[in-house]
């Protein structure tokens, strides 16, 4: 009972603190502190609820237990991280992103192709592509190649569609300007259309980062070497090492957030001029 009251108090306290803090929402420190406090509050409430209700650790372990497991299994987590994130997700993401970008620029040369491929690309981008995971495992084997293949296909279409759309973003006036200079195709591409497309390209990249991890992990369910985050998660559930499962989830969340953060950071640098990035 006292744990539940503690949970309630921490929740109210954390929220009140945040309300008070967010009065200085222009300060960088506050913009960081508030979500951190929110996250910490969540963890404390989780801990208190698990203890308060006496929830079995094989169903939902307390964060403190997860933290211990995390600290005790860093070697394992590191191996899995390399297998799934570095080899599967990142390689797939890179290949998929480059392929999509190049394809977009090529498609863009032909009005016909653009008109034909864009609706199809848009459609495919809305499909549950994860479903191809078993096929990819069959085609590309059990190691990271099949995971990367799933990721390639998953990230390809959102990036393609966004890039093609972005390449058409330059206003008619900006294009006319290039025409009055009698600029050729490549000059217009590099000096006008690619820079103007960047905000869109990065939108696609950001969507793709979250897809990449899901794809790599799901694909491991259909076969993997005896390492990898998806492998460890499913094995962990099977052997009731739920604390290890949560440690893997934490790694995934950290990796995903970092990946997203890196893309957002590069975006900030590349599209500094865009109104959404100023202010």
């Amino acid at each position, binding site marked *: 009972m006292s744990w539940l009251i503690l949970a309630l108090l921490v929740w109210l306290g954390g929220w009140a603190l945040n309300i008070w803090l967010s009065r200085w929402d222009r300060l960088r420190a506050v913009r960081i502190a508030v*979500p951190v406090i929110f996250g910490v509050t969540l963890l404390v409430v989780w801990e208190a609820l698990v203890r308060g209700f006496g929830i079995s650790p094989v169903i939902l372990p307390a964060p403190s237990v997860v933290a211990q497991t995390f600290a005790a299994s860093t070697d394992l987590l590191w191996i899995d991280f390399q297998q799934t994130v570095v080899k599967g997700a990142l390689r797939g993401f890179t290949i998929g992103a480059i392929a999509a970008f190049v394809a977009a620029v090529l498609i863009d040369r032909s009005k016909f192709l653009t008109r034909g491929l*864009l609706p199809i690309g848009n459609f495919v981008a809305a499909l549950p592509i994860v479903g191809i995971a078993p096929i990819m495992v069959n085609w590309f084997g059990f190691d990271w190649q099949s995971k990367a293949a799933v990721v390639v296909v998953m990230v390809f279409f959102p990036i393609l569609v966004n890039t093609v759309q972005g390449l058409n973003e330059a206003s008619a006036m900006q294009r006319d300007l290039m025409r009055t200079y009698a600029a050729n195709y490549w000059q217009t591409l590099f000096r006008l259309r690619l820079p103007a497309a960047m905000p869109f390209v990065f939108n696609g990249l950001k969507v793709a980062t979250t897809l990449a991890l899901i794809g790599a992990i799901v694909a491991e369910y259909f076969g993997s070497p005896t390492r990898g985050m998806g492998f460890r998660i499913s094995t962990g559930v099977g052997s009731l090492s739920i604390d290890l499962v949560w440690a893997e989830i934490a790694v*995934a969340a950290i990796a995903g957030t970092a990946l997203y953060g890196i893309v957002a950071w590069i975006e900030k640098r590349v599209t500094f001029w865009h109104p959404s990035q100023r202010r």
Partner: protein
Amino acid sequence: MRSAAPVLTVLAVIVGIWYLAVAPMNVRVALDQAERAGEAVVPEGSVPRRAVSVWRLMRDNSEFVHLGYALERPRLPTPQQVGQELWKTTGEMVQKGRPFSKRGLIYHGWITLQSTLWGFALGTLVGILGAVAIVYSRTAQLSLMPWAIISQTIPIVALAPMIIVLSSQAGIEERGVPKAIISAYLCFFPVLVGMVKGLRAPQPAQLDLLRTYNATGLQSFLRLRLPASVPYLFTSLKVGIAAALVGTIVGELPTGAISGLGARILIGDQFGAPLAIWSALFAAAVLAGALVTLLDLIQRITLKRMGMAT
């Protein structure tokens, strides 16, 4: 409609490439089969053949290449095989008068659709409420927004078994619920982001106008923010329903393998029936297309009614 011709052309090209790709993809299996049937294949034995490239195999055994187009367990089925399988599990079922047979995709599509719609409803609700909180409370904005992003980087598949157990502990036995929760988990994010944008779409001048009327918070929400957000809402609903479908299928892959298109993919995999996987994938594509098109239609009608059609 202007793009009908290009789209069809591109589709035709894709199908063409697909047909061509079947030969190299399936040649090894075809040769194994031929060899087992007593034919002479060069080189002999599937293990030695692994060292030889598919192109050489196709050249040296050209008489068996056609076998790759009619395999029972192809690595890559032909479009025609997929089409036949789709027909067998949908149209033929209807003809036989058992449209909702468990052996047909209509039943499984329906299961998936139900979860998707529940997840979509739940996700949309959470997304909209979250957006309202974020737009109206600085604290909510600062606290929730980063976590909304982080939430999407968590592999929900990992949560699936725990969601099942926790929801059954909470007394929910319905199999669809965990799927719907996963689906809502993926769906709420685009809706949240879109609605935050939409609810913030009114210009300061439009808000100031209401202030000069001394309008209440509720009045300005209902008369300004909400209608102004409608175009954004629809755009994000379309993304959201696609995400909800992905969520349902991801949820069906490991959480039960009982029914639904995701389960069909899994079962197809378990029994080494690639055609079942491919036909379930295409059924999912049709479902996604139908849902998005439907929303698009509603969007057009609504915006037209509201005088906001572009």
